[in-house]
């Protein structure tokens, strides 16, 4: 099969339009019973020459607790790439309903520091459609390069689940992943997340998904209250790991129970050092101090 090459978008897609379009598509598919197909779109989408708005960068850094340096935080690049990924998931030939998809995991490779002064090309594609015990999952891969043809500086893989959607020909995994029992330890940090946490992150990331904005908008989509953005939580954990991670690192997170707002979240960060005492890895886990349920866990690893 020949590579069709990326579909180059003229402008950064508007997330709000993408959400509206996704809602319309969902309604149309429900009414018409359109056959969604069982394959992911082959085309990747690309936006070139993206310049970061320094005010948005500063607002993001202040909200997340990153030092407001000229280096783009890894989570900020995720937010930058998110509309490009969304535009792929919004294509007519995308086989899963976009709205209501659940972010299961995220893995980022920050290969070198990227300054806000560098124009970026961001490409996104959908790969690895596969079964899940409660639906169908896939990976959205986004890559950021500095100028055409240059090496990939940042790569993010976001794994999403379309809950309750089973496509013909895609089997559930036969092996159930058994979750180990979680026992809360002594936290190294405690976050107080107000009801406006979702709105605040929406303002700096552009992700105005209604499930994060208010209890009312979340209820409209079947949630009992609004929930914190997963990438907001993971980015705060990354910021908490601090400057020890250096300029190149891997950053992973697995999301479990959503954080309903307002909330208190307990966090534990464990530093793992190499034999020589150099930093090797920081593992983090966050949970609800009230219910003892794990919200998310992950690690930041030196590259």
């Amino acid at each position: 099969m020949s590579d069709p090459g990326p579909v180059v978008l003229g402008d950064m897609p508007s997330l709000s339009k993408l959400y509206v379009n996704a809602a319309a598509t969902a309604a149309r598919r429900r009414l018409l019973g359109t056959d969604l197909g069982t394959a992911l779109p082959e085309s990747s989408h690309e936006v070139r020459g993206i310049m970061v708005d320094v005010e948005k960068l500063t607002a993001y850094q202040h909200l997340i607790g990153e030092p407001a340096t000229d280096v783009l935080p890894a989570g900020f690049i995720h937010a930058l790439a998110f509309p490009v990924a969304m535009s792929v998931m919004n294509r007519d030939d995308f086989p899963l309903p976009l709205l209501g998809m659940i972010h299961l995991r995220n893995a980022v490779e920050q290969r070198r520091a990227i300054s806000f002064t560098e124009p970026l090309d961001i490409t996104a594609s959908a790969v690895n459609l596969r079964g899940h015990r409660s639906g169908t999952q896939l990976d959205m891969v986004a890559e950021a390069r500095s100028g055409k043809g240059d090496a990939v500086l940042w790569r993010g893989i976001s794994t999403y689940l379309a809950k309750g959607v089973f496509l013909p020909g895609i089997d559930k995994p036969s092996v159930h992943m058994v979750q180990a029992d979680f026992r809360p330890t002594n936290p190294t940090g405690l976050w107080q997340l107000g009801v406006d946490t979702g709105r605040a992150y929406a303002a700096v990331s552009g992700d105005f998904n209604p499930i994060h904005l208010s209890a009312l908008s979340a209820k409209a989509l079947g949630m009992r209250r609004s929930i914190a953005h997963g990438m907001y939580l993971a980015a705060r954990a990354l910021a908490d790991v601090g400057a020890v991670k250096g300029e190149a690192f891997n950053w992973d997170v697995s999301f479990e129970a959503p954080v309903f707002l307002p909330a208190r979240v307990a966090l534990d960060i464990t530093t793992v050092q190499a034999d020589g005492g150099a930093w090797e890895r920081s593992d983090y886990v966050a949970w609800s101090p009230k219910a003892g349920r794990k919200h998310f866990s992950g690690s930041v690893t030196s590259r």
Partner: protein
Amino acid sequence: MSETGREESVVQPTQGTQGQLRKAVVVGGNRIPFARTGGAYTKSSNQDMLTAALDGLIARFGLQDERIGEVAAGAVLKHSRDFNLTREAVLGSPLAAETPAYDVQQACATGLETVLGLANKIKLGQIDSAIAGGVDSASDAPIAVSEGLREVLLDLNRAKTLPQRLKVLSKLRPKDLAPDAPNTGEPRTGLSMGEHQALTTAQWKVTREAQDELAYNSHRNLAAAYDAGFFDDLLTPYRGLTRDSNLRPDTSIEKLATLKPVFGKNLGSEATMTAGNSTPLTDGASTVLLASEEWADAHDLPKLATVIDGEAAAVDFVHGKDGLLMAPVFAVPRLLARNGLTLDDFDFFEIHEAFAGTVLSTLAAWENEEFGRTRLGLEGALGVVDRSKLNVNGSSLAAGHPFAATGGRIVASLAKMLHARGQVDGRPSRGLISICAAGGQGVVAILESH
């Protein structure tokens, strides 16, 4: 003993700081370009800018994961939440988290005072390495609630019952809702710093032409220093700025002459202070790496200059005995006497340009016979500053003046200049720093090439 060959004029040899103690050297510095308020750093906090300046210093000298003896910095306009500003900046930096830090606040002398205090600790052998610094944001300035609202909020917090709370709330008046913004006025006089300086400028009969010429030279010298690459290893870009945004390389005496006076307008024809010969409100941060000679050698780092000595002074400005910004006029003679030096023994003078009038009033006071006799306790005038040695790479009129960051800017630049000059007439080249500050204070210092 003194290394100056002027032992005979040293009042008490035991007061000299050289000879008995080990040396504190300036390894280098790093600052971010200074930005006019409301410009490139509008959304950046003091902590952001201090961290950015610190990050650049750490990268330049390979201090990642290094436990520095102590870091001291400060800000003049400071949010109450920033009580541990310097320690927070250290925690956000790649320095070892085991690096202690403390805040200093001495108005515009903050930056120089951090250098002197830390250098003294190094000389005493208490620490081997230190980072001095300062930061200020006039853009992200703290705004306080009014005194009335503050009292009501505190009382409300103490009230236990609903009726008590309602009673407290009933004390609130509409005027209490207006916030208190910071200003540059002196608390005891109500006069702004510019109005104070306008009185001093007029008292010393400093002309408009002389002030404009000093401002012109500041811009010309700073622009030439940038063009010559002088700041290449003293500065890291931040938020898109690579040069101080206040710098006007194309300004001219003629252009400066067209500006209308902004301070001392009640003086009529004697009103000479304009926006061109006064420093604008500015945002920025600076840092300086200090060390013992042993530490610098062990880390294979340069030793640009030695911190010789420093002196603070204050004047009774409240009822006009002396001008608000004239304390360095008194500090310098004391410092020179202790070190057995005269103004002729210096190769560089770094006199902070709060206003062109401040620098020129200071020089006039030092050149005045009567003032020297009656106020400085000398036999005559202190002396004349060779203008060709004054602020040769520009100063605050061109670079801008983020209050607490100015000391670090000057120390790092002067250390580099001294190192480049090396020996002069068989002695280390020598520089004098003079910084005036609010509250009628001033801090001055001597650096020598290493």
